[in-house]
């Protein structure tokens, strides 16, 4: 023992320190670390770029330019031959845009007989004034013959120009807003007649071929119906299935099969669920196309595996001592599960359900196949009426060429992301607040 240690001691003093390439190895270590930081930085940078790009394109959609005009509900224009008492169609088919135009002409101080000037007014105000003014007259026919201030929407191009999104240095012939219109716009702006207001229409309008009167109203209702259906079906079924698998099922071929199935369904491409919905719910069962009910069923099947997996994890996290205690006090197995395990697992189940719902809310592909890509202008009264969904509405706007639709689309994405964010925050808060570590 002793002489060996002496021996090594002697040689180690003599031998120079062996070069084990420490410098190189440390450099490699630093490089490796850097790669890690870079990888994370790339991911986060992309996230930041994507979000800023969408927000910067879309935040302006929440404002809409209107022109406040004193509309003279002139009997000569609405009902020139004075037949409205006998023929109700007169008030429906009257030339309402003419009223708005006349008010604008007067406001701008143009000579009504100057045809060239009047023609340049075309495309200044939105054609939606027809619907808007008709509604006013229909609600109160006595308004005819009087004058009233009404906020008329500016046409989409003027709206863009007003928000400064159209480059006015481009030659006049190559942009959609003429110099004259810009001059008028600035005049009205200076008078405070033309101004931006919060765009409530974005939340209330349905589909429209005019950007200024299109919104996510129908899509929000459709998505709401679907979420309710998913919640009502997927949550009870998912929880029941998990309880069976986690608490009652004995390990057998059959339960193995169910388990493999659930894991697989969680990874099946979402578009396949759309094919299932089309073939089974629409073609075989004859349910209506474009209905949020069918959309809800498809999303339910898609969300079930997520909920089942989360619920089983939550059930498994409840310690066995709770089970033994309940059983020991004389509870039946069913009572043990429903009165003790389930309440303790509830926060975890709810978190999983909310995350599943959030995924279902953003899902687009299966809904395209069951006909949710539809031009729906009226609110769906029941889940069986034609409707769209928020992401599908975004997809439809993505296929439009006009600039103003891109703005609406980005605005709709912001709305969608806000909803998802709210749901995720609720899930996180639930988890933080109620989760128990055993």
């Amino acid at each position: 023992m002793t002489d060996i240690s002496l021996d090594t001691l002697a040689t180690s003093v003599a031998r120079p320190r062996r070069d084990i390439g420490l410098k190189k190895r440390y450099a490699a270590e630093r490089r490796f670390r850097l790669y890690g930081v870079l990888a994370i930085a790339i991911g986060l940078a992309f996230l930041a770029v994507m979000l800023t790009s969408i927000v910067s394109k879309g935040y302006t959609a929440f404002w809409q330019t209107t022109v406040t005009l004193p509309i003279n509900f002139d009997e000569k224009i609405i009902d020139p031959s004075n037949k409205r008492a006998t023929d109700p169609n007169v008030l429906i088919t009257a030339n309402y845009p003419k009223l708005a135009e006349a008010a604008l002409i007067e406001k701008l101080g143009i000579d009504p007989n100057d045809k060239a000037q009047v023609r340049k007014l075309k495309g200044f105000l939105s054609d939606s004034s027809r619907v808007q003014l008709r509604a006013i007259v229909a609600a109160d026919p006595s308004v005819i013959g009087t004058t009233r201030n009404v906020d008329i929407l500016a046409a989409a191009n003027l709206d863009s120009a007003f928000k400064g999104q159209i480059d006015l240095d481009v030659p006049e012939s190559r942009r959609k807003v003429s110099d004259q219109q810009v001059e008028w716009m600035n005049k009205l702006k200076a008078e405070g007649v033309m101004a931006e207001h919060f765009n409530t229409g974005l939340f209330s309008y349905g589909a429209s071929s005019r950007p200024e009167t299109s919104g996510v109203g129908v899509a929000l209702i459709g998505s709401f119906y679907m979420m309710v259906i998913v919640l009502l079906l997927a949550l009870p079924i998912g929880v029941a299935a998990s309880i069976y698998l986690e608490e009652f099922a004995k390990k057998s071929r059959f339960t193995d099969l169910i388990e493999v199935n659930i894991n697989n369904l969680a990874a099946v491409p979402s578009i396949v669920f759309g094919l299932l919905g089309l073939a089974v719910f629409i073609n075989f069962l004859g349910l209506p196309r474009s209905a949020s009910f069918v959309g809800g069923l498809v999303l339910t099947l898609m969300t079930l595996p997520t909920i089942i997996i989360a619920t089983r994890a939550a059930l498994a996290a409840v310690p066995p001592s709770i089970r033994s205690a309940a059983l020991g006090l004389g509870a039946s197995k069913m009572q043990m599960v429903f009165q003790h395990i389930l309440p303790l697992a509830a926060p975890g189940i709810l978190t999983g359900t909310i995350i599943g719902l959030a995924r279902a809310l953003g899902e687009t592909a299966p809904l395209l196949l069951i006909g949710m890509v539809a031009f729906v202008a009226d609110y769906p009264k029941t889940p069986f009426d034609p409707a769209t969904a928020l992401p599908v509405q975004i997809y439809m706007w993505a296929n439009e060429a006009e600039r103003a639709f891109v703005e609406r689309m980005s605005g709709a994405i912001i709305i969608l992301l806000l909803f998802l964010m709210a749901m995720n925050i609720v899930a996180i808060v639930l988890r933080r607040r109620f989760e128990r570590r055993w």
Partner: protein
Amino acid sequence: MSFLLVFAIVLAIGLVAFVVGRQRARAQDDGTVKPHSRAHYHGWWAFLTGVVPAVLFLAAWDTGASAYLDSHIHASLPADVADGTVAHEDLAAGLVKSLASGMRRLDSQTLAALPQSFAELQPMLAAKGVALAPDTKDYMIPIAADANRVSDRLDTIAAVVSIGLALIGVGFGLSRISPRARARNNVEKVMLWSLLGASTLAILTTIGIVLSMLFQTIAFFEKIPLTNFFFGTVWDPRFAAAGSGGAEGQFGLIPLLAGTLYIAFVALLVAVPIGLMSAVYMSEYAAPKVRAVVKPALELLAGIPTIVYGIFALVTLGPFLRDISAALTGGTPFIQAQSILTAGLVMGVMLIPVVSSLSDDIITAVPRAMRDGSLGLGATRSETIKRVILPAALPGIVGAILLTASRAIGETMIVVLAAGVAANLTLNPFEAMTTITVKIVNQLTGDLEFNTPQTLVAFALGITLFALTLVMNIVALYIVRKYREQYE
């Protein structure tokens, strides 16, 4: 009587039975005999004996009745229609059905003196807001009226029988209430069966997916030979023009499959290194504080819907890459706005959190002892990771990559918006290619006729996609599970 009304009545009977049953059980408990079940179990048992048979009968009757009504309408169609082709007969039956449902809105006076010609009937229906196809024939009116009578009769029978069943069941349930009756066990047995039923829904869904696609696919291959689909290199389905018979198009899978795999490959090229490196950094280097902030931020990427990625590729990244390439060559862009590169890049970023969270699980599952052993022998951290941890975790990581690849192959919205629709066969990543999922969407949006190969091909594509991802998932899940067992 409508289905919903009957259902509501049955439920109401059940609820009354619950209250009565609970009351009766309480009244019987005079303290002499120890009751077997608590009072509300007796109530629930009475509820179940009333409601369950009635509802089951109602559901079965409803299915049977609609089938019976169908055959009844078919049988009463005149011989010259019934002798025609099946499609024609179905069309006529469909017209009768919509006529019958329209006639439900007429009041009884009009129905009593029903006009026998469609020309007279149509304005009456139109006044009630019912729009009907103009090729509805006069002979259909009596058939529709008859169909309505038959279905009314069927509905009445259903209502009477199911309410009767509910009453009998409730009576039975209530009569069995006694202190020693095993009501709780009975209720729990029903609960157990419904739990089992819920868990079989997963299997039913899979069966539904396979069967629904299989039938349509078989119909497709009756029109187009198998080899044309699986080995065809040209995708040109044409549009299903009315009366063209629709067999002219070419349905080659190869260009779509190539596009799908190419884009998935580019996506993996982006996602695997970045995802893996960030997982490694997160689990081995990052301080807990950094981890607490960065990890949820990266997971945000997973929470963003894929349509948002697709829009970003379409509106921002695609034009940006095109303009950059134009600036590099000084004029003509060599990257198209919709290209494999754009779609692959964006999809890759979408998959980063998938790779990183899967690999994170796998890396943390490598036993502490292996790590400590390597560090104790003097290896640096990166050497430990590269030479010990990653090799040990390799099977798991391969499984994770397979799972990610199956996500990439099945991804739809990004490629629909960013990859293009032209079915090219090219190796140039700057050009547009299309994928299986894009074509499924293309073939199935818009108005559909269900028996043209142009529509049916979507199901053949769907089943191909399903089979492809299924195999990858099963293999991946198997590998991951085996790997976990290895270290447990």
